[in-house]
């Protein structure tokens, strides 16, 4: 059922309306199960169709259907001009993408993983992020940099780094980090339609995870505003703030703690820059306790920034305990499974930290 519905979705509204029997309540198929991968794929497909200036470039995005199959089917549909396989030349092709954005196109520049973006980071920061400011508004750079970020499974140190803090440090960039399929779809569409450089941090381990997507989120014009967080779960005792895959871990921890009578409010940041501090503050003023959870390293990270922001704002006076950060371990990612498992925040770590914060 889900697959055939998905086919209908991809084929377009017309097919659906033809098949819709008369007299039935006229609505598009209700909630469906969509993987994050498919959500990203559909979002790109729709945006490519909507605006002919949009194009995708990166390694293996075309004929290979994408290293992680995120761009599956797009080359077949749109051809060489719109879906471009590049040689292994990150600095070169990122510069080319940025230049094309300056001259009127709307590129989606894929990094096979964000680890490789380090080779091109000068183009992202100095050529893309700063240009609108340096030119005092004369030159826009409407580009999306996307790809998997953070830890995966067994890929070791050079392929597991989280770049959220690095990119979010820089003015002129927007940085988003979706968790579920709805986030992926809405934020990617918003990013592509945004006239500014957007760093879009995906997560490889989330690609295959399916989520229910509401009717509204399946609309072709469904976008999620960049800079707004979402409360995934309401609670009164402690605020958990997270982004990307760790949001799921937070919800799992919350489910366990609910049995003990501890109700966690889980905030899915969605955007790292600009960050929705207000949502965090409002929540903290209600719960009086804050725990941040991220996959990246602790020093100078997303959690550090949240701590600083909370201290500077009205929510500080409502804290009954210092803010707690749950992060990846401060080491390069090891390979052996037992070591890797203990290098990233696990549900038990989150639960432990919450209880410490609540002093229970």
């Amino acid at each position, binding site marked *: 059922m889900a697959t055939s519905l998905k086919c209908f979705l991809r084929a377009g509204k017309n097919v659906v309306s033809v098949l819709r029997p008369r007299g039935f309540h006229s609505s598009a198929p209700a909630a469906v199960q969509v993987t994050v991968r498919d959500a990203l794929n559909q979002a790109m497909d729709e945006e490519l169709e909507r605006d002919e200036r949009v194009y995708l470039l990166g390694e293996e995005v075309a004929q290979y259907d994408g290293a992680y199959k995120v761009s599956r089917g797009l080359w077949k549909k749109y051809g060489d001009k719109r879906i471009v396989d590049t040689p292994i030349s990150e*600095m070169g092709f990122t*510069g080319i993408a940025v230049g094309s954005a300056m001259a009127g196109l709307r590129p989606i520049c894929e990094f096979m993983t964000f680890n490789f973006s380090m080779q091109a980071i000068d183009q992202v920061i100095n050529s893309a992020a700063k240009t609108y400011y*340096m030119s005092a508004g004369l030159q826009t750079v409407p580009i999306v940099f996307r790809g998997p970020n953070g830890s995966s499974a067994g890929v070791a140190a050079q392929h597991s780094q989280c770049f959220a803090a690095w990119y979010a440090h820089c003015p002129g960039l927007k940085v988003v980090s979706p968790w579920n399929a709805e986030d992926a779809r809405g934020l990617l569409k918003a990013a592509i339609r945004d006239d500014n450089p957007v760093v879009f941090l995906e997560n490889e381990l989330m690609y295959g995870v399916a989520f229910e997507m509401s009717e509204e989120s399946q609309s072709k014009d469904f976008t999620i505003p960049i800079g707004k967080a979402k409360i995934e779960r309401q609670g009164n005792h402690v605020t958990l703030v997270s982004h990307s895959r760790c949001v799921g871990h937070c919800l799992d921890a919350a489910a366990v703690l609910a049995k003990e009578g501890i109700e966690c409010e889980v905030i899915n940041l969605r955007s790292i820059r600009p960050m929705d501090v207000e949502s965090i503050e409002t929540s903290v003023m209600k719960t009086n306790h804050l725990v941040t959870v991220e996959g990246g390293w602790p020093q100078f990270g997303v959690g550090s920034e949240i701590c600083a922001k909370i201290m500077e704002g009205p929510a500080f006076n409502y804290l009954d305990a210092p803010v707690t950060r749950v992060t990846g371990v401060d080491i390069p990612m090891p390979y052996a499974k037992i070591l890797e498992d203990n290098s990233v925040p696990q549900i038990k770590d989150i639960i432990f930290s919450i209880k410490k914060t609540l002093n229970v």
Partner: protein
Amino acid sequence: MKSMLSAISNALCRVTGRKVAGTVVASRSYADFTPRVTFDIKKCDLHGLEVGPPLKAELTRAQGLEYYRTMQTVRRMELKADQLYKQKIIRGFCHLYDGQEACAAGIEAAINLSDHLITAYRAHGYTFTRGVSVKEIMAELTGRKGGVAKGKGGSMHMYAPHFYGGNGIVGAQVPLGAGVALACRYQGNDQICVSLYGDGAANQGQIFETFNMAALWKLPCIFVCENNKYGMGTSVERASASTDYYKRGDFIPGIRVDGMDVLCVREATKFAADHCRSGKGPILMELQTYRYHGHSMSDPGVSYRTREEIQEVRSRSDPIFMLKERMLSNNMASVDEFKEMDTAIRQEVEEAAQFAMSDLEPPLEDLCNHIFANNPPLDVRGTNQWSTLKSIS
């Protein structure tokens, strides 16, 4: 000259029976000067090409005066910038272009304003040839709100339609330029992009990555290496295993051009532009040129080269002098005409400098603006948590 004029005037009077002395005097310039001359220009060395740019270039009087005006304006503007920098009115980086004027003037003469151009930080000359006024350039150098980037960019970050700066990171502009060319091909608008870099940048890896993709995808991009013999303080021999920069494109055809001769540059650029527009893909031009100033205003420019060398180039190959001599010796213009132009240009540059010194600095309200385009206003943290500043697009 005057006796010849009166002779003509008298002759015309006899022929027409009317007093035409006035008319003759008024139209003296057209009757007297050679309207066009074909000059021999230096043959370009070729790489991967059977045929190169022509060995002759036609110069009309109007073109000659225009190129002279362009080059002299850039020259005087750069020298004025030197002055203002020494008076500490211009701060930070200031990389001057005097000596290299024929490159900017020659390239612009061969392309259209609808084509695209991007260069590195020695960009004042190109900013001018791409259409920004001397006034807006100087005010940008002095960091005033009348500057082309409202004072927020400075020397290395000036922009204009189809001119993408001014780029501070050595070599980064080359892939950007190829990207602009990709957009041209994508949009099918028959435009090309000229992507410039120096002999120092020529060793950047990203340039070779760009060569590969530009050739693979046949991007309409002219890569131009302005070889002024020194990458900051390092001579080409000390930096490059191969100083044949026009060959460094390997599978990309290349030409080595006399960058001190505006006609040579123009013809080579025309040739290169035709190559790109005909769909053959990218091409590389090495312009052999020279900068009189050091790398930047912080560099006296004499620790790694001799004053004699600089003097030699000035006396033998100055691009402005060479053009002027060509025109004078072929009776294409008069000494007085050049003098008048020089005076007018000095005046223009002086007025621009006055404006640049007297214009207001950008207002503090502008500090946080232009972070994002087409965005609702946002708050920007100041130096401390109680300082919340406004940013609008």
